[in-house]
């Protein structure tokens, strides 16, 4: 199977032998389904990589392609077409799942451009003080103490209304900070989508930092929610 990132590379259709570009799911000449194309998730939808997507358009295209590609349409087809329908639909679903979700989409695009993102980069140990965003250092320290206290109280079967209220307040605060991060991310989307190479590089760096911060906040909120709900 040809795996090329350059979607301009022509390949011959398995059925009619007419050459077409390899990013196509169907042969433009004979309309037969093709093996999974090279290229990224954006190209599956015929898009150039960008971040500010029209979600309803994306959904519409997802449905249109699903109707044509889905294994249900190939239940009685030849084995090779069945295989490709399965592989192509898996690719379509994976692409849609990634692109429709703003954070996943951003992470995916940044990874395409060589950024290191994810748990392995940000570090799994949230207690590691060097991972804590500097402006949150004090609050996180305080919060972790309260979480410990809360868990200890729970174990003893006690309830501490004051502590509960304080944790709930902390959760609201961190939720608010997450919203700010999301807002800032969107601003960077525009910068990336519309900017030149220099602006893109700057936006990319800013987004990597924002995603790190977001992941950190997300883990905190999850900890608090779990402890409150336990």
């Amino acid at each position, binding site marked *: 199977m040809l795996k090329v990132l350059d979607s301009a590379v022509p390949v011959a259709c398995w059925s009619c032998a007419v050459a077409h570009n390899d990013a196509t799911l169907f042969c433009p000449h004979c309309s037969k389904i093709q093996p999974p194309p090279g290229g990224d998730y954006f190209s599956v939808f015929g898009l150039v990589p960008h971040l500010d997507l029209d979600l309803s358009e994306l959904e519409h295209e997802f*449905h249109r392609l*699903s*109707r044509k590609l*889905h*294994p*249900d*349409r190939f*239940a*009685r087809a030849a084995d090779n077409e069945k295989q490709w329908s*399965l*592989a192509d*639909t*898996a*690719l379509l*679903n*994976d692409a*849609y*799942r990634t692109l429709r979700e703003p954070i996943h989409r951003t992470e995916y695009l940044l990874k395409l451009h060589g950024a290191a993102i994810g748990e392995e980069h940000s570090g799994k140990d949230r207690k590691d003080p060097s991972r804590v965003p500097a402006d949150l250092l004090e609050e996180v320290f305080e919060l972790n103490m309260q979480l410990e206290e809360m868990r200890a109280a729970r174990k003893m079967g006690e309830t501490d209304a004051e502590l509960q209220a304080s944790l709930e307040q902390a959760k609201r605060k961190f939720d608010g900070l997450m919203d700010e991060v999301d807002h800032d991310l969107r601003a960077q989307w525009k910068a990336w989508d519309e900017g030149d190479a220099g602006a893109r590089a700057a936006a990319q760096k800013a987004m990597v930092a924002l995603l790190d911060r977001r992941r950190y906040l997300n883990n905190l909120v999850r900890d608090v929610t779990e402890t409150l709900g336990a």
Partner: protein
Amino acid sequence: MAEGRVVGIDLGTTNSLVAYMQGEAPVVIPGVDGSNLVPSVVALDPMPAGGGRPTVTVGNSARKSLIETPERVIYSVKRLMGRGLQEVQSELKLFPFRLADDVEVGEVPRIQLGELRFTPSEISAYILRQLKRNAERFFSEPVTQAVITVPAYFNDAQRQATKDAGRMAGLEVLRLVNEPTAAALAYGLDRAKVGTIAVYDLGGGTFDISILKLRDGIFEVQSTNGDTHLGGDDIDNLLLAIALDEIHAEHGVDLRKHPSAVQGLRKDAIDAKIRLSTEAVARFDIELPNGDRYQREIPREVFEQLIEPVLERTAGPCKQALADAGLTPEQIDEVVLVGGSTRIPAVRKLVDDLFHLAARGKKPHIELNPDEVVALGAAVQADILAGSSKSTEEMLLLDVTPLSLGIEALGGTVARIIQRNSTIPASATEHFTTGVDGQTNVAIHVVQGERELAADCRSLARFDLKGIPPMSAGLPRIEVRFLIDADGILKVSAREQRSGKAARIEVKPTYGLTDEQVESMILDSFDHAEDDFAKRLLIEARNEAETILSAVERAPQSPAWQQLRGEEQGAITAARDRLAQIKQGEDAAAIRDATLALDQATRRFAELMMDAAVTTAIRGKTMENAGEEMGDAVTAPHPMAQAEFK
């Protein structure tokens, strides 16, 4: 090969059905007895005197054996599909499953029926073969392709076991469809084009909740959740346990030691449950072996208190499904009720509370028969797959995987690679390397579930990647592609990237049969011979005629015969003579019609006999005694009134 019909099959815990698309509407195909429901009961007839394999009977005709020869009958086998020995142990306390005792942990459990043993897939294959035959009888042509429904929350092993059963029954399973999604399809044919619907499916043994978005013929599942061990059976067991305990405490009789008496009592419990859906009170009135009577009233309030914990277990999955779909109850436009257990008023009340229906002036959808709706939806999906029909060409089902897929990582934690509720087919690619110089194989443990530790998840399979070229540790780069197909079943492929060599994968399913094992369990081969199909139909029709004729022959010796009115006796005799004559001919359809006519004529007689059999069993008489008292006529083909389980 000519493209035959594709049928839709609901392989249920309690009942199974087969349906097809008749023009623009799905229709259930009745069995030879005229009933749409084939009870999911399989019985082994007595060993033939001359040796050889005993006949296997399915459905209503197998049901009578529940009381006569419980050790040769199995029901609710769906609870065992795709499950390991240890998981099955908990079921044994409440169901009279007899497992072969020499099966080792890691092997597929075998069920002992009389002198033979069967895997759960084989038992299901007998049910599927019966449905296949019903469809072939109906169309007078071979049926080889089917869509089979499974609970949405079935895991990989349970799905594979179902697919294996299809293959054993001589059916190419074109697709496994999730039951709630099938129900949505059945309703979707003539409903509004846009909206968000929830399908609440409480069947005999499983519970599913699915949330779907409908748009221009596309049924896109947003989330699904459930419990593969929660259903009407659990409610029956609660009532049964009360009766058994009270009988033991008040009358000093331990009926648990008498399997046939327990079966009789279970039937009473089911009757009581069904009555309580429409009446305020149900009664047990049972004669015990020591001559005492066990009498007990069960008011509906008491029943509802009793079953509340069972019903409450459906609330959690519903809330989780809503959360996963990112929806509030108010955002659900319609709720569809599926499964016989949704007839219980307390269930409807719970659903109403969960989705705030009454408060919004809405009612759940119950227009389609909850016992049939899944099969009807399967027929719609079958029609979509056949791809030849105008009425379904715009429809497409996009389903999800119910459970996350993960790999066991260092320290026994799970690294998730495909999240639950991902639209299927879905895939993930992972890279592995070696830890020791010259290492040529890598083991990967794949699990399914939402827990943090692999030990708490469901083990799917261990993959052994072999044939890695010997290199320094950490140098090989093995790309493994995990793909969940449209049936929700995992497929794996691997490649060593530096050498470009496809790594050989040895898959050892944690639970499940190998390909060779499935092959060896394919039911008798004559089902595949399409050439002599007409001949087979004739032979089958004659066999059916033979069975009912020999039962009717002995009928006058039965006490139940005397309870019939003169004209009833006359009608039976006339139908009998007609069948005996037509049977000599070559017209399979005419023989079947005459058989059906005789069956109809004997229905009341069969009911009378069944009542007698139940009473006898409860009294704790031995089978030999019962046989003498009733004559051998208890082998009538449809001894239990079919309406009872409706």
